[in-house]
């Protein structure tokens, strides 16, 4: 945008009045009597005063995003019918003309593919788990399993963007950014929204920084991506021979300069910059303490699996997520790539589960044993499901599955969710039979658990008020304990 125009927009009425107040006697008198008369709260401050709106069940979120869409039919949604009808065509009455992706729309037949894996029931609710995820099955009683999720998008990027930001197009704030904006950081030495990436060996799909973008919110609400190396936040440590006091002095001077240009130009991003410098200064002290594995007893390392010692693995990220969350980070977003099983799905799935199963379960157990699970919401799931029919050649042991947005399974734990199995799909695992949960409903429910009313929690941008759930979303009370 034209800088001059932008400058004009930054000079809004409130700022004009507050700047003029000193010159105008009467207003000046008024501001003497009521010192904060002109410090009209900005929208963020208003929300920080009214949020949470009601007693929150979850204070923090850890979102274990399984990027690429894991096959619900090979993990949670047990369908003996598919095994019985293995190789037979999907009945047209079930598919009902629903759309397909470009990858299978040219297929002449849609042979049903029963899962290669054995399933067994676990926990007091008797939920089904495949043999690939024994550790997750071991914590069945803590899990709120939703078998009836559905979404609108059929391809990875829009579906992922939809899950993360509530809209299929980009440029909207991420779920974590909304939470950061509404509730702020509990620990002022760490970002409120942290992002950790890892990659499995399966067929992968990209993740992009737009997924943890602040959108139209202040840039301080942007997710901070931790790099997978040994130094999780790049350029955080001081160069050698710089004393901390020198650093302090330098930051003070820079802040003074920034303040000057803010007064001149009025761009709120300058204030965000000052805040970010200050945050990173405090992070220099806080981050090494948190990312260090020194204080982790060996039993914890064994629980997550020894992979957790290798930076950048999913296990290491789970352990780091626990540490960040324990230290007050509102929203920790993990992405684990490699679930996009279009072909060779069973073999890839085994590898993915080997990466993910033990650390995911360990995270729940670890939070629980520390007394943190009841205030931390953990979410595990992908952006959509996979089809019950095979993509590509079908053999007894090997098959591929295409994208399936009509139904899929996610699970949550802790933070006020009700353990159990919720919702049901039909016997083919194609359509939802009961308790459909749309992505907007899912967002509304998460917001509710965090003490936020998704309908009144808005941000005004381009002349209209935006919500995470846009104009829809219902709280699914069945999922709430």
């Amino acid at each position, binding site marked *: 945008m034209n800088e001059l125009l932008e400058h004009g927009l930054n000079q809004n009425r409130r700022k004009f009045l507050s700047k003029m107040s000193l010159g105008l006697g009467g207003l000046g008198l008024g501001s003497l009597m009521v010192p904060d008369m002109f410090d009209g709260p900005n929208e963020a401050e208003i929300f920080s005063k009214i949020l949470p709106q009601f007693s929150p069940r979850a204070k923090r979120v850890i979102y274990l995003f399984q990027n690429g869409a894991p096959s619900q039919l090979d993990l949670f949604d047990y369908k003996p019918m598919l095994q019985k009808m293995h190789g037979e065509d999907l009945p047209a009455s079930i598919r009902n003309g629903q759309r397909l992706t470009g990858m299978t729309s040219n297929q002449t037949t849609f042979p049903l593919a029963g899962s290669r894996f054995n399933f067994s029931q676990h926990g007091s609710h008797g939920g089904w788990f495949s043999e690939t995820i024994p550790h997750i099955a071991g914590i069945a009683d803590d899990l709120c399993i939703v078998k009836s999720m559905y979404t609108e998008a059929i391809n990875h990027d829009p579906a992922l963007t939809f899950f993360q930001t509530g809209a299929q197009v980009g440029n909207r704030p991420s779920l974590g950014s909304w939470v950061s904006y509404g509730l702020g950081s509990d620990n002022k030495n760490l970002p409120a929204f942290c992002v950790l990436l890892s990659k499995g060996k399966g067929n992968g799909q990209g993740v992009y920084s737009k997924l943890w973008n602040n959108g139209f919110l202040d840039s301080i609400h942007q997710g901070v991506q931790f790099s997978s190396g040994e130094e999780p936040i790049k350029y955080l440590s001081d160069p050698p021979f710089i004393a901390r006091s020198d650093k302090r002095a330098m930051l003070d001077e820079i802040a003074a300069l920034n303040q000057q240009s803010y007064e001149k130009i009025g761009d709120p991003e300058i204030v965000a910059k000052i805040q970010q410098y200050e945050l990173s200064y405090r992070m220099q*002290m806080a981050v090494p303490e948190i990312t260090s594995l020194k204080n982790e007893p060996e039993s914890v390392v064994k629980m997550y699996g020894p992979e957790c010692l290798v930076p950048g693995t999913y296990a290491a990220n789970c352990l780091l997520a626990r540490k960040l969350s324990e230290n007050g980070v509102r929203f920790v977003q993990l992405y684990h790539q490699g679930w996009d099983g279009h072909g060779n799905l069973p073999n890839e799935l085994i590898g993915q589960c080997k990466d993910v199963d033990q650390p995911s379960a360990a995270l729940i157990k670890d939070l629980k044993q520390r007394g943190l699970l009841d205030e931390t919401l953990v979410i595990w799931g992908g952006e959509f499901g996979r089809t019950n029919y095979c993509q590509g050649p079908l053999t007894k042991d090997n098959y591929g599955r295409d994208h399936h947005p009509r139904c899929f399974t996610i699970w949550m734990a802790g933070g006020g969710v009700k353990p159990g199995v919720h919702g049901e799909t039909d016997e083919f695992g194609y359509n939802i039979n009961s308790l459909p949960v749309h992505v907007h409903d899912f967002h509304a429910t998460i917001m509710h658990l965090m003490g936020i009313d998704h309908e009144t929690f808005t941000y005004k941008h381009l002349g209209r008020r935006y919500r995470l759930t846009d104009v829809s979303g219902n709280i699914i009370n069945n999922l709430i304990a």
Partner: protein
Amino acid sequence: MSAPKWLALGRNALWILNPFLGIIAYYHQEINFGIYFQWLGKMHPMLLHFPIVLGLGIAGYYVYTRDNNKISPFLSPLLTIHSLMATIVAIFGIFLSKQGIYNHDLIFWHQWGGISIAWMSWGLMTLHEYNNSFNTNFLLRALVGFVFAGMLIFFTHKGAQLTHGSQVLSWPEEEIAKKITVNMDSTATLYERAIGPLLQQKCLSCHGPEKEKGNLLLNSPDHIQKGGKHGSILIGNNNKKAPLLERLFLPLSEEKHMPPEGKLQLTKEELSLLSYWVRSGSHLEVKMNELNQSDSLFLLAQHWMPSVPYSNRQKNIFPDLKAYNSNYCTVSYIFTGSSDIEVSFYQRNFYAHENLKRLSPIQSQIVNLNMQNMPLQEEDIAFIARCSQLQKLNLNFTQLSADQLVPLKKLTKLKSISICGLAYDEKNWPAFFENAPFDEVHLWASSLNPPQIDKIRSAYPRINFTVGDNLKNDLIKITSPIIDQDSSIIASHLDINIKHFLDGTDIRYTTDGTDPDSLSSPEFKQTLRITDHTTLKTKAFKSGWISSDVAQKTFYRSEIHPDTIYFITQPDKQYPGRGTQTLIDYQLGDQNFSNGKWLGYLDENMILVIGFHQSKKLKEARFNTLIDNASYIFPLTAIKVGGSLDGTQFKTLNEIKFPPLQKDDKNIENKSFNCPIPGEDSYKFYRFTLSNLKKLPDWHPGKNTPAWMFIDELFLN
């Protein structure tokens, strides 16, 4: 007499302002005012005093001035001014009313009362102007004066109650509450702890030094013993109830009930406390620690605190928490509208007891306290033990011991406590868990063994202990060590470190190609310096773990840099690398053949010539290659080297054949092939021919098709 211009202007303004007032008053719930109006609203409490004073003056004038002829001509302009001010103040008041949540009844009366004053004043002005009978009837004027003054006082008092609390004009009880001293020591007497201060707060305004109603003084043990004009208050006549209790327990409506109606009453707990005290013999000297600790009398006294008058409580219930927050301490309400507060501390390096002590004004509102990892002392625990509303407490890894936690048992509302990682001593448990108020304990800590856990669980079945299930000592394979040297190429020497993320790991290594073991292989202690071609293998060992897989890395020596290289056979178009530079760029191509760092040949030998400006003697040439049989990439079968001085006639110097790949060999690895160059002669040009496998072996799915060969680096020595 025509009115002056400003007066006419004012009167006209009234015709605009009053309908406006009526409309916004009636529809105020539907209207949202902007920030400027909110600011105007703040002027309301300041401006309203002018019309009150002026209005009372006018009312007084009505009552005072009997003589009809002496009514001042200024009355009408004054009423105009008054009406204008009252109207504006009322408008501002409505702006203000939008900014807060006020008592509905009070605001209803205040709002419409204020508006009626403004309109009455307007009406009176009109009467003066146009109605002569009002001007000539003193009684009517006096009546109006009284009504006007009454309305002013009544309706503005409603407003005062809005801003200053409904007890704005009641007796300043909070002043009394402030002066009350309570001795909290365990060595204090029951009288000092509770009875004395309770009587002081609830009774001394009438039975204290200032007044001495019924000849009864209650400000010292002696006076209490002595009683009043009817004798002792603690012992009843003829087996009747003690007069003190009798009076206290009478219904509020009875004339003899104490304290009299309108005074601060005793709470239920306070009534029980006094009645237990009197019935146990009304001892004035007994000490708190001499009482039976499970007696109701002790418990009631122990928990007694002076009650705070309602209006005062109202003000203190939502203190601004900004001042309590710092970078290392977060203080917030559980949610908006709740007076419950949660507090978290972060970063132990910045913790000091003062940080906690700062919270004393809001201490009684803290329900959730997170002090994990803070270096706590006994004084901190003493402070926490006084947070009477605490429900959830996190003391994980605070380095306290169980006996230091005992004071926390006082917290009757405490539901859940997390004490992970604290030092436990079997002897100390009973003192903490016996009769504890909480029913959830997070006790996960590596120092507890399963029999100990079972023992606590069975001893305190009421409490739900979370201990974690990681107590079983599974044998798990440890991760491999990490060879901390990015470069693989030795120019003169390389320093290598080997590290492991888990502390206390035994790292062993070999350089002779064998797998390290925990006995004979050297232990890695300090930086390793290598100067020659080395395959470093290393392995981690640790007790309680299965030893790790071998991590290995090969380091290549490369002393000589050729001046020119050219290909006789060109690499495949798909994998051209960066041309001849690929071979001498010191970048190894790892195991990903398509990363652009590899030269690929299909069904063809690689033939290349290197040249020097001056003749050079080479001792060996080593080619680094990739083997990935799943991708049809096979090792080379032979290297032939020739030397030449003119670049056209090459003399064969050596030819080496390599064994073919077997089915059971590693199917993906980086492997280097060395070709020694015998003899003492120097040459300007060397030609290398690397032979590719022509047909894949029978065990391979692609049998009989040609193989790929991938080369990424050439090392000359």
